[in-house]
């Protein structure tokens, strides 16, 4: 009991000592602290920007995908029961999200509304066929689905109503994959930059580590202040990058939407806060691991 109490006291004393050591060391090695913090800030701004770009590309791809649909025009004389069967068959095709029937009357009304003319009176008959609007889950599958639909004998013609959108989605897919690859690469570069900055700051003090060992400090007694410093530097750098991204993203979104009103950008405060959270955890983790690895190296020497 007494022993455990003694250990707790010792640990609290050590914690107090480590926090004090960390604070004084951060201040006394001010230049190095600033170097690490600014490296973390810049690196995480790069990572954060990439994540924001990726999020927007994903959102854009989803918007475009929603607009992609197949217009399926039916032959004259397809009865109601065949139509219902067709609708069920289309729905069972792989990748089909929604099938909506548009009767020839409804199509004419829509056209008349668009043109502002009473076409039936002018032409004397309704030239439009019955049709289905088929929405797909993935825009890149639209061609395959259209070809399958064309195979039905009741189908007169299949029109990809948003071919342009479909192409955009394809480009979007490539961009998305490209961004993802860049993000991974940038993440690795940032990781390297942060680790290197922390490593340099520890390298500066390798002699101190040696001296601490010689006066009887255990390896963990030496490690803790360095780890806490790494965590602090990582957190401060991440917080700064979060604030900079938060402010600049809001500004960029408002500016871009002024110039390009058709461009729908993600403007979600919760998403930005989540991103800030991810950056904080990343900064803290990298600072900690960087210190741990660097100190470990000099402890072994």
């Amino acid at each position: 009991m007494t022993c455990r109490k003694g250990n707790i006291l010792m640990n609290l004393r050590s914690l107090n000592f480590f926090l004090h050591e960390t604070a004084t060391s951060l201040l006394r090695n001010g230049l190095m602290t600033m170097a690490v913090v600014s490296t973390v800030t810049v690196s995480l701004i790069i990572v954060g920007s990439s994540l924001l770009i990726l999020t927007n590309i994903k959102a854009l791809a989803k918007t475009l995908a929603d607009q992609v649909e197949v217009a399926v025009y039916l032959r004259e004389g397809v009865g109601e029961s065949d139509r219902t069967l067709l609708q069920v068959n289309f729905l069972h095709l792989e990748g089909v999200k929604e099938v909506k029937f548009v009767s020839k009357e409804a199509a004419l009304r829509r056209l008349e509304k668009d043109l502002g003319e009473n076409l039936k009176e002018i032409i004397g008959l309704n030239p439009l066929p019955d049709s289905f609007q088929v929405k797909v889950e993935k825009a890149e599958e639209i061609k395959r689905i259209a070809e399958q639909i064309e195979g039905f004998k009741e189908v007169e013609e299949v029109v990809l109503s948003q071919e342009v959108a479909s192409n955009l989605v394809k480009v979007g897919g490539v961009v998305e994959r490209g961004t993802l690859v860049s993000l991974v690469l940038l993440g690795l570069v940032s990781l390297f930059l942060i680790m290197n900055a922390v490593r340099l700051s520890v390298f500066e003090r390798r002699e101190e580590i040696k001296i601490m060992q010689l006066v009887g400090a255990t390896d963990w007694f030496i490690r803790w202040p360095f780890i806490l410093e790494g965590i602090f530097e990582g957190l401060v750098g991440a917080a700064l990058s979060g604030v900079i991204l938060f402010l600049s993203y809001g500004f960029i979104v408002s500016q871009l939407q002024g110039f390009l009103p058709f461009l729908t950008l993600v403007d979600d405060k919760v998403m930005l806060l989540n991103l800030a959270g991810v950056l904080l955890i990343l900064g803290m983790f990298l600072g900690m691991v960087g210190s741990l690895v660097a100190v470990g190296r000099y402890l072994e020497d």
Partner: protein
Amino acid sequence: MIRMEDVSLIYPNGVEALSGINLEIKKGEFIFIVGPTGCGKSSLLKLIYWEEMPSQGKVVVSGKDAGRLRAVQIPYLRRNIGVVFQDFKLLPKKTVWENVAFALEVTGASRATVYREVPRTLELVELSQKAKMYPDNLSWGEQQRVCVARALVNSPSILLADEPTGNLDPQASRKLVQLFLKVNRLGSTVVMATHNKNIVDPVRERVMGLKKGCLVSDMQKGQYPDEPEESEFLSS
């Protein structure tokens, strides 16, 4: 307290620093290790505080055989050994007070102990007035004394000093040796490496001579041919 049996030390670059060393230092002894620069004095001390491990032979300090020691045990054992390093090895970003306190803090000493022992030790080496200064702002002699204070603050059972008078004038050297003798009388075993004959002769303690890594002489206390009643060196 310290025993070496047929010890040799060869550095990774192939230099043989010590060879065939056999010695025994008893608890409470005061020993001078003398010899020219490069004869292996520092290497011998490094074996005692486990900075180096013997390439061959057996080194036993405070009952612990270096060959059977696990790395995690070394920090705890070092706390019983105070070392005055030739190059001081002070922490440059810590003040005089913090450098001395650090040796206590690593042991998990309470704040009260730190605040009791550090001023006392600084007083002992006459550095109380410079407690808040950084090592870089001190003279060589003063840095030397900070190093001495750090070595003494834990009341170590063994005190090792590597050329501690190398940067001091004769008067300061005499005062330092007097301090070490006092520490020795309080129960610590003191091993001091030096090439300064002027401080060795008047003290008349045990002297071991090293030459090219080999122990060439071992003159026990009381074996001096013209032993005076009391050393003037001590009473001055």
